[in-house]
């Protein structure tokens, strides 16, 4: 048996007589510093992590984990100071704060799990000034990082890598922050792929103009037809209404279509839950209401979620195509650009002037493959080619 001073089973409460050594966190040869957890003791009340109070190397474990031993009996030998030794450093080596029957406070600094212990204010300051807390030394109890510790780092001269151009930093709005987090998550976790197509909307434009001529409600837009076309494609391929979740591939309501809306607070994607059950005029009214609600901040949870596919349309600009990022709760998104006039060959090969819109379907490769996505996009294009079909309220019997 190698030498060394004993580490004892500590007394953790007035009434504690013995303790269960639940778990060793060190093994012979481990070098520990103050604050490192040595082992876990369970009493009838709680589990407590016992920390090293001085530096040392563990030599021998005397008690196996799972054994119960009386308070004060040796559980290991180490090179650190002896118990109750007169070395001032190690005076408290045996038991952390044997307060009568009081639950020990969480003690965390220098934890083996790598969690940084900092006050909420210190965290906030660090976040705002871009300081990595793991680089800050805490001056609080057990190494807790306090605001002053972060401020000290903040005021110390910064490395001269910053450009000298004056910049300004604005706090993102809540919506902006949420969108940023969600889209980052999406780009990190969803393997995106894209299928592209041009849809002929020549006829659609005529139909639209006619409908709007004798209509008093929300004006029908090309986007409303794209919503209707997407709903029609979902009706044709109901198994497209699904998404990847940790639990598996989840089926979603077939009739739901999300609509990306640019609002003063940032991007929102409310869902038209029953797009599949509506004719074009009804879609226009419902989508108009959703957009107004989104802009006025009056969306409720009922207006969100449940769709597998969304639509993002930048057609009001000159952009010809948009390659969007799939929402992390969905599996596909259709980007639509502006309508352009193009010459296309007719049956005889003569150029005819047509109106077209460029579509990009971004998809989650975990749920769809290229063929399925292409067929789906085809169905969207075909629905846009035949705008009259969108006018009718779809027959629910036809799936």
């Amino acid at each position: 048996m190698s030498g060394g001073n004993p580490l004892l089973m500590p007394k953790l409460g007035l009434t504690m007589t013995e303790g269960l050594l639940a778990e060793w966190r060190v093994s012979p040869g481990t070098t520990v510093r103050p604050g490192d957890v040595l082992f876990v003791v369970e009493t009838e009340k709680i589990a407590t992590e016992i920390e090293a109070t001085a530096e040392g190397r563990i030599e021998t474990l005397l008690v196996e984990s799972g054994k119960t031993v009386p308070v004060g009996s040796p559980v290991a030998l180490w090179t650190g100071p002896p118990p109750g030794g007169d070395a001032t450093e190690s005076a408290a080596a045996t038991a952390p704060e044997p307060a009568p029957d009081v639950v020990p406070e969480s003690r965390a600094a220098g934890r083996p799990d790598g969690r940084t212990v900092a006050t909420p204010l210190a965290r906030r300051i660090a976040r705002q000034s871009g300081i990595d807390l793991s680089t800050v030394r805490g001056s609080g109890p057990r190494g807790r990082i306090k605001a002053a510790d972060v401020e000290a780092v903040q005021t110390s001269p910064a490395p001269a890598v910053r450009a000298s151009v004056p910049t300004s930093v604005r706090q993102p709005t809540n919506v902006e922050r949420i969108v940023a987090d969600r889209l980052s998550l999406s780009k990190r976790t969803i393997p995106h792929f894209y299928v592209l197509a041009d849809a002929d909307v020549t006829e659609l434009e005529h139909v639209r103009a006619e409908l709007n001529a004798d209509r008093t409600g929300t004006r029908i837009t090309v986007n409303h037809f794209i919503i209707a076309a997407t709903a029609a494609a979902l009706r044709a391929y109901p198994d497209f209404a699904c998404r990847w979740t940790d639990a598996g591939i989840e089926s979603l309501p077939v009739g739901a279509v999300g609509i990306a809306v640019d609002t003063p607070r940032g991007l929102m994607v409310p869902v038209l839950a029953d797009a599949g059950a509506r004719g074009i005029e009804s879609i226009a009214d419902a989508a108009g209401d959703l957009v107004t609600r989104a802009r006025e901040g009056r969306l409720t949870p009922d207006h969100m979620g449940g769709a597998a596919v969304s639509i993002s349309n930048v057609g009001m600009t000159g952009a010809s195509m948009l390659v969007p990022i799939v929402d992390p709760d969905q599996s596909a998104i259709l980007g639509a650009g502006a309508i352009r006039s193009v010459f296309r060959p007719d049956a005889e090969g003569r150029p005819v002037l047509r109106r077209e819109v460029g579509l990009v379907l971004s998809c989650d490769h975990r749920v769809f493959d290229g063929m399925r996505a292409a067929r789906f996009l085809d169905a969207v294009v075909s629905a846009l080619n035949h705008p009259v079909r969108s006018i009718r309220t779809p027959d629910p019997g036809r799936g």
Partner: protein
Amino acid sequence: MTEIRYLKAVNTALSDAMDADPSVVLMGEDVGEAGGPFGASRGLLERFGPSRVLDGPISEAALAGAAVGAAMSGLRPVVEIMFMDFTTLVMDAMVNQAAKVRFMFGGQTSVPMVLRTPHGGGLGAGPQHSQCLEAWFAHVPGLKVVCPSDPASAYGLLRAAIADPDPVVFVENKALYAMKGEIADPPAPFAIGRAAIRRSGTDVTIVAYGAAVHTAGTAADRLAERGVSAEVVDLLSLQPWDEATVLASLSRTHRLVIVHEAVEAFGVGAEIAARMAQVGFDELDGPIMRVGAPFMPVPFSKGLEAAYMPSVDAVLQAVDKTLE
């Protein structure tokens, strides 16, 4: 400014309220001829007559219940319960009746009544005449609870409580009755729900109410000697309480200690701590500390009681802990 005692401030507020509004009546044990068990209603029977100052028998439940019915029928009763410990006997009237009438009758009527009662130990009154039970009432939707700390707030809050359309529990402190303090001339009402910053500071916020405000003040003096600048917030109202003022103070000092004479566990301090941990989380630069009585009945012996009452030292220790 004139200087008067806390008890006199209560007395003056009662008398001014009765002068101002003929529907204000007093009821309670010995509030009439005897002038109140502690003298709070001295002289009022003589001034306002027996139809407005009602000496009641030892029937706390019926007096409080009658106050509810009277308040629903046009009076503004002020009931005195001799010791807060005896409010156990008025719980149905306060909790099931007064607090709920407005709500459960769809807003048809309010219950403009006040229940005055003194809490607090330190006088050797023992386990059944010393308790601070205000948290019970603050837990009941429909009741308001106020607890003045000095003569000016005693006057101001009592006038506000009597004028309030809803039931208010007005908690006095026996140990403060003799306290002298400045009061404006003419004295002014205080708004219910507003805290007062008794002393400004930058390093730690000490929130207290009632007699504990003075404990906190003494602790702040001592801290100042050590170069620690403490801000003392006097809650004054416990339900509703002035969350905005406490949060604003916490946002300046980033450390919070809450002091009250009532038992610490499940007390007013627990609510404040929980709210601040929620709404003020990012402001905190140390743990929120509470200082209150230990979880035991108020003992009788002088030594035991002294150990029981939250002390200046206990406040200092708590401040040290959050400044660590």
